[in-house]
């Protein structure tokens, strides 16, 4: 289990960050997107190799209209 943008997501043990992001239709080609795991930025080049620990907190962010 991990937490993706605040929601619990069940994933096989040792699933990659890339697999998690697939849940919200994000892949390495997605533009204007950035991801942090447990409070650290993970560059997209590492998404495939990055194995998520159980309970990892993933924040996947993109641009929103703002001040």
């Amino acid at each position: 289990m991990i937490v993706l943008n605040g929601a619990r997501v069940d994933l096989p043990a040792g699933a990659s960050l890339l697999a998690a992001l697939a849940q919200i239709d994000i892949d390495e080609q997605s533009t204007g997107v950035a991801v942090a795991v447990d409070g650290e930025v993970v560059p997209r080049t590492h998404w495939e190799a990055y194995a998520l620990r159980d309970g990892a907190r993933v924040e996947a962010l993109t641009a929103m209209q703002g001040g």
Partner: protein
Amino acid sequence: MEKLLTEDPLVIAGESLRSRLISGTGGFASFELMADSLRASGSEIATVALRRIEAVPAGSGNGRGGSLVEVLAEAGVRLLPNTAGCHTARDAVLTAKLAREAFQTNWVKLEVIGDEDTLLPDAPELLRAAEELVDEDFVVLPYTSDDPVLARRLQDVGCAAVMPLGAPIGSGMGIRNPYNIALIREAVSVPVVLDAGVGTASDAAIAMELGCDAVMVASAISRAEDPVMMARAMRDAVRAGRLARRAGRIPRRLHAQASTPDEGLAQLS
């Protein structure tokens, strides 16, 4: 005016800009209205925030920040990510790093909020975050209070500009303390961008007349009854205020000074 503005560019961190109006992207009823307003404003820079991606039906690109980025690219503006919503230096720094990753820009409008009611900045946290981001090679444009001492400290730690508020975000109160804005102009050599508080065109003109190098406008355009028309008004007002500052205004005096001399006045009775 083209000629004039290229004569008098705004330079931030070595980048030369022809428009002295920076626009926000929040509060518009639609992407289309946002794009039309941005074009009408002549802005070359627009701020964006970072928020969570929402899961959407596979294939559909809707609600994707990607589409916002594309709309802004079509409107010909560069993105200036902000750290809106951050209350600590730590969150603001991480948000800036995520923005750099997402948009391939090291520019950031740094916001560290200290109070929910007024959305006023938290001075010590802001200074801490600014210092850290400068060390990380960011071009830092901090949203700050109108405190001249804090503005000076922000310049001293390496900020590329300072963005003092005229009044609380979205208040439309204009520049509540013009004296402090004038003192900030004296206190720093980096560009001063008036941020927050502008409610209508004259507020933007006043900011420029006080010596600001640029003005940031968000709600005053996006929440106006006619955002595109207000965007035009702001474009003209910033230009007018800048020209007036450079033209050298007449002094204020309590009494009158005739604009029509009395010499040669007829004796009619």
